[in-house]
């Protein structure tokens, strides 16, 4: 009898768990006045926006609430469910970037999507911008620093190029097609020249869908960034305009430029983070492309003089290439290396390289 009474007492009077009084009702948000000294606006359990001092010039009623009135645009990628927030005043530009944290449940992501996560903001102009973001895989928190207020969401980038780890295939050279004939209509190459062009970017023609670019990482990049690498939101622009030819039809002079950029993203142990890749080169001695000599030897073009985006002038730059006949025109695949700088403890830099194979076409007349 006594044991039964004790058991009844023990089970009937069990402690119930307390709950934190932080969570808001579904769809509820917050509006706080943030001044020049900064502050935080949050929508637990999924969103916070931390303004440092100097971010806002004066007291501003900053609002944040789950975005349920309409879908977040898919311009920059596929929004992760329940991660979109309406943040205002829309269009407010920030003197100092604000730190946004969005909870992204790893269970909502398909395998491999975590490395493609980014914070996206819809600007007042309607354009959707993505920001270099860090994703804490252990805790499911996506972090970025944003410079403008507007609807925000965690998106899985749809424009990402996987970076291969094996050696790139060797390019095989080929026969140059004849220079363009004189044309009176449209933006065709100048008479007597042969131009190859390639361009892709998230805004105009996404590189992933265009198939213009393939990428490989060298061992240094792999050692510093791991084996799972993507170039997210890549931007590529390459123009090679061969302006003079010798008697056998090989080019002797070229004018051109290359720029390649994007967010080089990798999984660092339990964090996904990025490196802003930006590299480029122009022919000739300055920032603006100018003619330089070119020598064709087998599958390699050797440019006489080039200038890197950092202003360094280089001589006899070798560019492996392949030319393929595709019907009435030709396609060139050119190989360039984009430099990645890694800091060392003694302050020196170690350089790694991302090798790009870019497919160029002769513009249609």
């Amino acid at each position: 009898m006594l044991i039964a009474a004790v058991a009844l007492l023990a089970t009937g009077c069990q402690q119930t768990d307390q709950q934190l009084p932080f969570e808001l009702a579904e769809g509820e948000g917050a509006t706080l006045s943030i001044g020049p000294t900064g502050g935080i606006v949050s929508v637990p359990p999924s969103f916070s926006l931390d303004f440092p001092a100097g971010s806002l010039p004066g007291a501003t009623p900053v609002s944040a609430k789950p975005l349920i009135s309409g879908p977040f645009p898919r311009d920059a990628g596929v929004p992760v469910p329940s991660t979109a927030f309406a943040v205002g005043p829309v269009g407010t530009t920030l003197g100092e970037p604000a730190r946004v944290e969005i909870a992204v449940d790893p269970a909502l992501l398909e395998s491999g999507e975590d490395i493609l996560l980014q914070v996206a903001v819809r600007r007042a102009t309607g354009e959707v911008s993505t920001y270099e973001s860090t994703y804490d895989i252990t805790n499911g928190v996506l972090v970025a620093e944003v410079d403008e207020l507007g609807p925000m969401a965690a998106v899985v980038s749809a424009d990402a190029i996987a970076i291969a780890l094996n050696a790139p295939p060797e390019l095989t050279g080929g026969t140059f097609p004849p220079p363009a004939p004189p044309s009176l209509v449209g933006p065709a190459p100048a008479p007597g020249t042969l131009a190859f062009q390639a361009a892709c970017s998230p805004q105009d023609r996404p590189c992933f869908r265009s198939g213009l670019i393939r990428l490989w990482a060298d061992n240094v990049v792999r050692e510093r960034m791991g084996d799972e690498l993507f170039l997210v939101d890549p931007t590529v622009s390459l123009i090679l305009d061969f302006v003079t030819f010798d008697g056998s039809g090989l080019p002797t002079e070229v004018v051109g430029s290359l720029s390649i950029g994007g967010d080089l993203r990798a999984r660092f142990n339990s964090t996904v983070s990025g490196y802003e890749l930006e590299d480029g080169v122009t022919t000739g001695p300055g920032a603006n492309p100018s003619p330089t000599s070119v020598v064709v030897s087998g599958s390699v073009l050797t440019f006489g003089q080039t200038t890197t985006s950092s202003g360094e002038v280089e001589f006899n730059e070798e560019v492996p290439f392949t030319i393929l006949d595709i019907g009435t025109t030709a396609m060139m695949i050119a190989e360039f290396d984009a430099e990645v700088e890694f800091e060392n403890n003694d302050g020196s830099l170690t350089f790694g390289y991302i090798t790009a194979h870019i497919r160029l076409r002769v513009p249609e007349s």
Partner: protein
Amino acid sequence: MTRSVLAAFVALLACTHGLTAQMAPGTRSVGMGGGGMVFATGVDAVEWNPANLAWGGGWNISLIELGVVGIGSGTTATDFLSIMEGDSDAASLIAALPSDGITLSLVAEGFAAAYGLDLLDDLPNGANTAPLAVGDPLPSVGIAIGPIAVRVRSRMRQNFTLSKELADLIGNGFDYARIQDYATGNTGWSSLSTSEITASYGMTIGSSLSLGIGGRYVMGHGMTQGQFFEPQVDLGCRKGDPTCDALVIQTGSVEARDGTGYALDLGASLELPLGFRVAASGTNVVQRMNWDEDQIIGYAARFTGDDFDDDLGLNLGIGDYLDRFDGDVIDPNSVSLAVFEAAQNFLEGSYFPQVFRAGLGWQRGGTTIEATGIKVAPRGRYRSAWDERVSVGLEQRLPILTLRGGYGFAENGITQMTGGAGLRLGPVHLDGSVGKFSGERLDAAPWDGYFGTLGLQIPVGGQ
């Protein structure tokens, strides 16, 4: 120097924020392998079995009760300090750490120990900084008069876990070339500080059965929980560039400062022939604990790779690091996600579990032998890895000396070997006990830890 300070800082975290653990008080029970329930008398009976108060008689005053327990896995205490200090063998010790890192647990029993740790626990902006302020731990004292006893008890429990990768960062210093390796993993901490006032009564039924009951009022002085978030990496940041940080580690923590609760204990004891006795007791059979939800404090701090870079020679002091923790009462509309994430499940299970004990003992002359089994209910997280156990203990009374020894085996592989001695100087009894935790674990690092207690009592009359 920087690394030494960091080591001290982490050690401070380890000491001030850690574990949820529980150690039943009493130098006698500790000396007997964590058993000693069957023949616990006087003030000790309040915690172990209030039914024993019915057998005691006389009176008993407990003036001092001190105890400290430290247990870890992943490394030994000595090796842990070598890692934190960045000693010459730190690299090899870090390499030998298990993949799940280091776990440290600490329990301070008694006013002095608990109050000392509570002072260390104070963070900037904290309200609990004045010495002996309202809300601080109470002195651990008790008095038993015949079948009635009252005991005041203060405890502080702490847990700290440190990932192998973060130990690497602290022990070996920040290395740009290894920036991709760093991770905080399960690094975090929790702590609890309480004082309890328990009143107990034991009564006999017939000549061989006694029953006991105890009522307890619990004051929660503080409860914290925090975690480190995974590093944010900026590969484009160059060494010495003041405008950026190559590595940033965010931390978030929450603290509740005002909790109250109550509990009911029950016990029974049956005398058997030939000096045998069987006993059973239930602690927290009924209990409630509530924390003030309107006064949850959130803290956030930010550490960078430079903080772990010996080359920079920043020589930051502990105060500099603690100053990073910026805290305020949490406003749901204005809380960083780091703090909110750190608060997950903060109040769930924030109470003591029910503890049920049963034991068999034999006492003849000055010799006592006891075997005790302890079962802990799954609900309530104020418990430790070694609470649920079987203990066997021996006590031998000599003319002015009492010797004790014992062995305990916990379900999860922890074993404890203990010993103790008591000195009777007239009416004053001074008792001390020490012990060592050890134990192998399947697919995990072995346990390693120590504990010690000190007590001063004045018993008069009775058993």
